[in-house]
């Protein structure tokens, strides 16, 4: 029988021996621990928090930021078992094939493998997220009785579908800590340590292998784990912090021989009220406006640029959702009336909606984390975020929205107003997905990536990274199910290599 152990009660000086240590009890760490359940491997899972939110633990996340607007670092994630699944929205969608490809117009693009490499893991990942029947774009078939898909005709933007993690009593998607605590306790060779904060990844003298891991608790206990292998599953921000701060053997930190750790940080900007969509002929189908349950899945439709449009127009991934009804000013009413009349369409039942979006950003090595001079309650250096946003990324997203407007006109279904143009207008409308990515990007070449195609840190024989920090490019899909697919693939790799 496995156990949850309160690390605050572990005597200082204790040294734990294990086959594998998983650092981080969020969706990736929990899923990996469960995937390794029926193997001979003894696994230790280290979670900084407990079973519930604790302000003192959460404050370990605090850091500083400069540059473009972004969230405070402690507000954008959660530090207790289940990690940021404790406040996620449950949105699910696998990335597209094009997201894995090298694209000439997108610097630093190209994953070491295509989507096929992880396709087989989406069934299990969907199950872990309690996402119901794996439908996605097949949902159109089952949602037909609820309404009509917007007739956009030929063009670059199409209706595609999100799915959602199971809602519990109409309020919560799957919180991995609560949901899987009992499953973790049933795993015989797994020990879960709560309130266990990792302060240092200890390399051996050669710098080529993790030898020991230093752990501390907020009540002053200090102990070590000596694993055969270690997996970092602590999110893109803390992964960078721990690698950079573990600089006693390698002065630039672990896995940072080419100064890549912490660079290429990305999140999905999710600006609101980016456009106003008017339909000439009455209301939109309900599956655009909110979640609907069809064929054993919770689904919602949105507008996405097609892969061919992205290739031909060199635009990034994005998604657009209908956020609610909108009011039109005099110019809007005039534009609707004039356009409908000129097209010969009746607009007496026209309805207006406000749109929100999620957009990919261009990989940028200078959008990065560095260690700050400040330290936290455990003596760990805090992070400083150097945030940058490219005007070109907003312009590309605007191009996709304009294509949606063109298609509405061509199909005589409605028209679109683009609400944002200047940098300040985009900044004022900004929200964020809280999707941290890129800080330990994957590449077969150690000069271009921190981890290799097996998610092993280049130059360190037994250290792996699970999570969206390994994404070289980011797509516009919500990362959770995608990072779970990668984590499950890593679990398979470790099963095969740690025997």
């Amino acid at each position, binding site marked *: 029988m496995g156990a949850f152990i309160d690390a605050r009660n572990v005597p200082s000086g204790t040294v734990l021996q294990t086959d594998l240590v998983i650092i981080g009890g969020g969706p990736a760490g929990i899923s990996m621990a469960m995937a390794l359940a029926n193997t001979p491997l003894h696994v230790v899972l280290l979670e900084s928090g407990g079973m519930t939110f604790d302000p003192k633990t959460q404050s370990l996340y605090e850091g500083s930021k400069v540059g473009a607007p972004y969230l405070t670092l402690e507000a954008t994630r959660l530090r207790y078992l289940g990690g940021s699944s404790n406040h996620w929205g449950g949105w699910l969608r696998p990335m597209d094939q094009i997201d894995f490809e090298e694209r000439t117009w997108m610097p630093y693009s190209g994953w070491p493998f295509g989507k096929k490499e992880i396709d087989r893991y989406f069934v299990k990942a969907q199950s872990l997220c309690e996402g119901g029947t794996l439908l996605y774009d097949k949902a159109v078939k089952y949602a037909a009785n609820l309404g009509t898909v917007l007739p956009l005709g030929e063009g670059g933007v199409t209706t595609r579908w999100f799915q959602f993690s199971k809602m519990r009593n109409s309020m919560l998607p799957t919180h991995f800590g609560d949901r899987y605590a009992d499953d973790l306790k049933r795993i015989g060779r797994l020990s879960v340590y709560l309130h266990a904060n990792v302060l240092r990844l200890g390399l051996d003298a050669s710098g080529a292998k993790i030898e020991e891991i230093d752990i501390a608790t907020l009540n002053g206990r200090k102990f070590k784990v000596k694993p055969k292998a270690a997996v970092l599953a602590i999110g893109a921000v803390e992964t960078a912090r721990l690698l950079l701060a573990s600089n006693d053997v390698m002065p630039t930190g672990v896995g940072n021989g080419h100064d890549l750790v912490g660079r290429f940080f990305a999140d999905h900007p999710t600006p609101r009220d980016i456009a106003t969509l008017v339909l000439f002929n009455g209301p939109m189908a309900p599956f655009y406006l909110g979640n609907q349950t069809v064929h054993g899945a919770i689904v919602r439709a949105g507008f996405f640029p097609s892969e061919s449009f992205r290739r031909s127009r060199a635009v990034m991934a994005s998604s657009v959702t209908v956020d609610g009804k909108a009011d039109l000013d005099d110019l809007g009413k*005039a534009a609707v009336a004039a356009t409908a009349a000129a097209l010969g369409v009746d607009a007496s039942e026209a309805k207006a909606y406000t749109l929100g979006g999620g957009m990919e950003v261009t990989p940028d090595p200078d959008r990065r984390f560095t260690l700050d001079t400040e330290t936290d309650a455990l003596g760990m250096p805090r992070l400083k975020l150097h945030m940058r946003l490219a005007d070109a990324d907003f312009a590309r997203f605007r191009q996709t929205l304009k294509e949606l407007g063109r298609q509405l*006109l061509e199909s005589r279904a409605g028209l679109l107003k683009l609400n944002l143009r200047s940098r300040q207008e985009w900044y004022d409308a900004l929200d964020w997905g809280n999707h941290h990515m890129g800080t330990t990007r994957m590449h077969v070449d150690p000069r271009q990536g921190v981890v290799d195609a097996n998610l092993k840190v280049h130059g360190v024989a037994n250290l792996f990274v699970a999570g969206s920090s390994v994404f070289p490019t980011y797509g516009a899909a919500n990362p959770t199910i995608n990072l779970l697919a990668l984590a499950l693939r890593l679990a398979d790799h470790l099963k095969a290599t740690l025997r």
Partner: protein
Amino acid sequence: MKRIKYTRRNLLIAGGGAAALAALGAGARLLLRKRYAPSPYDDLISRLDDRDADAQIGETVLAEVDDFDPQATADDLRARLAKQPLAAALAEDAAQNRLLEAGGWVLPETLGLLCALAAKAAA
């Protein structure tokens, strides 16, 4: 209460009064109708429904277009609309990605330019 007698005389008086009121109403409409100064683009602008609203849209189009040449634009639009009805011209614009923005509204180019001429005519 005195009853009105439906005599031939009374009916003639009532009919004449009604006709006079109708004529007065029609005249008032003519008098009150908004008058526009003639412009070189009236043949084009007349294709739109609401000249004031179209001019309002046109002002925002003009704000987006550099070096707007109304005469050349009118010539171009006449050529386009000689070939096909307005609705077909708009559909072709959308298909060919010929679009203009009017205060953010994505419009077919032909409609946007007609509105711009309406704004020029109203200026």
